[in-house]
């Protein structure tokens, strides 16, 4: 974090409007010309329980949540449980204040609602404030809110206090409120805002703000959106007009965005009985000639294993998205992890052959979802977009121009009825949809209802017209052709060279390697390390399967050693690199994090310096260092 940044954390209870308030705050500051990045922390609970959202605000582009934070707005938890002796949850009422102190940076600001929170209930509160040079504002936000509106408007009062202290122009927020709120609640909210703002102006010395918001200007128009938005929009721009799903956190976001938008696009969304059905419906729609998708998170994706294998052998285009969360089983439903990597790469019957992309940010999520559709429909193969609760839920500003792309509804390798007339058929008129010899492994498909296109699709091994066969010659021919498609896709991706990201000086001595959503955080850590005099570069891998062997090997060859950063407990990504490259185990160490919170840049800086370079123990168990083979 630089001096010019505000990292604002709004904390309260689930159901208290923390998410919407922070989203409006972030958007308002984006409109004011700043770069923003959010981080959501919430429990698997609808009403009550410790929740917060951080909004990082900077004049320069930001790629992560940053390190710690410097401004706390602690509101009450309306649905806190009563404290009870022996209950593990302790005093929930005070948590919006007490739970957030550990990560607050030195010199930071605390604003808390003294109408609901009593700081004297926190052990050593005053001592900690003094020790850390925190600046505390105890303000009865609840009373201000009640005076002109309803208690829930204390969020607005809190935002107004934030503006007054951090030097944010009130109009920045108020104009957004006017856009976002219906008339009925707008007026009282604006009054609450003014009241709170003026009160701070009058009662505190705001001429010398302790932590101030930066000012900035964008080169071009920006939009504020999440990874989930970007995935859904990528699908829509590829002509996806059918989605089937079953709710599961955090995949539900993509499912919801698609479902809300598809009717106006003349598309179809189906919420079905389970994830087996969801994936099967996507296969059925795609088989019949509609661009379709489904998705889930860990547990639900487990149910999709079986249809996934069916799509592979029947060569049905299929796009799935998998939103990882902490596992195994139900794990921690609202916390990010990357530990479904191996699950997604290999699950289902037989030799898996599929495409897996793990985008590193919202813009990549948009492009890679589009590419996933293009490959799925051209090569008749399942494509999976692998992301997680972090990328799915975090908001950041992206240039609007990223989305200024032409739509593409091309169905890929499909024959028309006219083309079917000249295609090979058997004696009873069945089209030979699975021909052995094709140019690039792809045998074009027909669609039910097309004259002259009938064939049998089957999960059994099959002959060219689809009939079941266990002939060894046919088996090898079909298997080789299907596997050949993967090689051809690899060659296409190599030629594109778009999706894996190298960051830092080409001649750097040491490497950081990561995949998916941690990319921005790792890049910021590398910048810090380089500023401190180290020589580090980053490889962020998005092409998980087929794996970019050559590019990763070249990266590893170019550095003395590398630290592989991933949110798993068993170093799955490092294992993938070793498996794919057949070595390099003595060159790669791991930094793992699986406590439910995503990496902060400082975690990586510490892991790199303390564990990798100095060979010392890490001070706590937030992250785990696993040395390279032989150490």
């Amino acid at each position: 974090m630089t001096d010019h940044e505000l990292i604002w954390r709004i904390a309260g209870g689930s159901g208290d409007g923390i998410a919407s308030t922070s989203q409006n705050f972030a958007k308002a500051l984006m409109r004011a010309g700043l770069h923003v990045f959010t981080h959501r922390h919430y429990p698997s609970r609808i009403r009550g329980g410790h929740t917060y959202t951080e909004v990082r605000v900077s004049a320069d582009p930001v790629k992560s949540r940053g390190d710690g934070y410097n401004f706390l707005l602690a509101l009450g938890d309306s649905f806190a449980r009563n404290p009870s002796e022996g209950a593990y949850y302790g005093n929930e009422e005070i948590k919006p204040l007490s739970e957030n102190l550990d990560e607050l940076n030195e010199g930071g600001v605390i604003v808390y609602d003294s109408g609901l929170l009593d700081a004297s209930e926190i052990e050593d509160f005053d001592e900690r404030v003094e020790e850390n040079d925190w600046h505390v504002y105890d303000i009865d936000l609840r009373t201000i809110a009640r005076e002109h509106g309803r208690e829930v408007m204390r969020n607005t009062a809190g935002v107004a206090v934030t503006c007054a202290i951090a030097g944010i122009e009130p109009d920045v927020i108020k104009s957004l409120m006017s856009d976002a709120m219906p008339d009925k609640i707008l007026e009282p909210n604006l009054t609450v805002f003014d009241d709170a703002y003026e009160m701070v102006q009058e009662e505190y010395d705001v001429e010398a703000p302790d932590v101030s918001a930066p000012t900035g200007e964008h080169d071009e128009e920006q939009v504020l959106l999440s990874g989930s938005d970007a995935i859904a929009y990528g699908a829509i721009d590829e002509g996806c007009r059918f989605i089937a799903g079953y709710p599961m956190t955090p995949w539900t976001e993509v499912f919801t965005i698609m479902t809300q938008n598809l009717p106006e696009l003349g598309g179809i969304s189906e919420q079905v009985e389970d994830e087996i059905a969801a994936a099967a419906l996507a296969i059925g729609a795609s088989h019949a000639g509609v661009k379709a998708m489904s998705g889930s998170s860990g547990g639900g994706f487990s149910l999709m294993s079986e249809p996934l294998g069916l799509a592979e052998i029947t060569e049905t285009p299929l796009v799935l998205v998998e939103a990882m969360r902490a596992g195994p089983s139900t794990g921690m439903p609202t916390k990010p992890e990357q530990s479904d990597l191996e699950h997604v790469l290999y699950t289902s019957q037989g030799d898996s052959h599929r495409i897996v992309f793990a985008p590193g940010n919202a813009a990549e999520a948009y492009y890679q979802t589009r590419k996933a559709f293009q490959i799925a429909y051209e090569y008749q193969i399942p494509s999976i977009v692998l992301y997680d609760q972090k990328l799915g839920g975090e908001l950041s500003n992206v240039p609007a121009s990223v989305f200024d792309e032409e739509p593409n509804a091309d169905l890929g390798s499909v024959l028309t009825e006219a083309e079917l007339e000249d295609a090979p058929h058997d004696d009873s008129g069945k089209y030979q949809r699975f021909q052995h010899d094709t140019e690039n492994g792809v045998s074009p498909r027909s669609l039910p209802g097309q004259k002259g296109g009938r064939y049998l699709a089957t999960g059994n091994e099959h002959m060219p017209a689809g009939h079941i066969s266990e002939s060894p010659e046919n088996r090898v021919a079909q298997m080789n052709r299907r596997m050949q498609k993967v090689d051809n896709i690899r060659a296409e991706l190599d030629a594109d060279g778009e999706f894996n990201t190298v960051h830092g000086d080409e001649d750097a001595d040491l490497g950081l390697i990561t995949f998916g959503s941690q990319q921005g955080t790792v890049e910021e850590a590398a910048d810090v390390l380089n500023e401190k005099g180290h020589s580090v570069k980053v490889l962020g891998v998005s092409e998980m399967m087929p794996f970019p062997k050559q590019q990763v090997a070249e990266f590893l060859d170019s550095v003395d050693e590398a630290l592989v950063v991933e949110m798993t407990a068993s170093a799955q990504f490092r294992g993938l690199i070793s498996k794919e490259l057949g070595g390099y185990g003595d060159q790669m160490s791991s930094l793992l994090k699986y406590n439910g919170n995503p990496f902060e840049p400082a975690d990586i800086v510490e892991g790199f310096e303390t564990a990798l370079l100095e060979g010392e123990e890490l001070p706590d168990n937030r992250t785990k260092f696993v040395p390279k083979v032989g150490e």
Partner: protein
Amino acid sequence: MSAFSAIGEETEQDQNEFTPGLEPQPTWCPGCGDFGVLKALKGAAAELGLSPDEMMVTTGIGCSGKLNSYFNSYGFHTIHGRSLPIARAAKLANPGLTVVAAGGDGDGYGIGGNHFMHTARENHDITYIVFNNEIFGLTKGQTSPTSPMGHKSKTQPHGSAKTPLRPLSMSLNAGASYVARTAAVNPNQAKDIIVEAIQHDGFSHVDFLTQCPTWNKDARQYVPYIDINDSDDYEFDNTNRSEASEMMFETENALHEGTVLTGRYYVDEDRPSYQQEKQRIGEMPEEPLAERYFDDSYEWERTFDNFLDKHK
């Protein structure tokens, strides 16, 4: 012009048109009831004047799953229990298709039971034929969800402690709008019922008794059978839900006491199909979605024009 010209095309078909040249003869055991389903389906398709290219037959896994290997149309031999979700989606994608799903009693009432229940509930306009032989055939004779209580097999050496599942009652309660039972030994009724089932606008469930001469030797050949709609002994109104329910209950009990009852148990012509309901609430286009991808004049919407404003 439609990109799917086989749909709705007026044709006169001989039922032999539905015999695939590559695999004209099924591999089912001699005397198997499955032949009866195949024959009835071919007869029904020919009678309805359907073209092989406008039919999609999806199947599950088991002896019954091979139905579409021996039937000349578009086919999708899926995975165990999953013929219905694939059939449903194909119908939503291109509603002009005639979609028939099929599978065995283990496939449909066991592993695929959840899909069966929900497809019936949603009333998709598809026909579902369940080959009910009260046993697992292709895996060599294990007890199935419809096997009678006390049924002995290698996986139930002491006889099944479970009462058999009630397919007709389950279907009615789940929401199917056409429920019938027929038997392989009753070819004319079987063909007529499949014709009606395909014509019915909604989810049609046909529980098709198919004797298994290899693994279920104790079971009857499902003869003699009684057609409840023709018999004076069974007076009931099959458009009346309560009467249908009672008749189904009696039929399911009777089977295990040696009396084979068949016929049309429930017919609801008033309930809109799922597609109609979905179009009514504005969540499904009037034109088949599959056609749009071949319409060169269609202006595909894009994010930049449609969705970005709310993010600014």
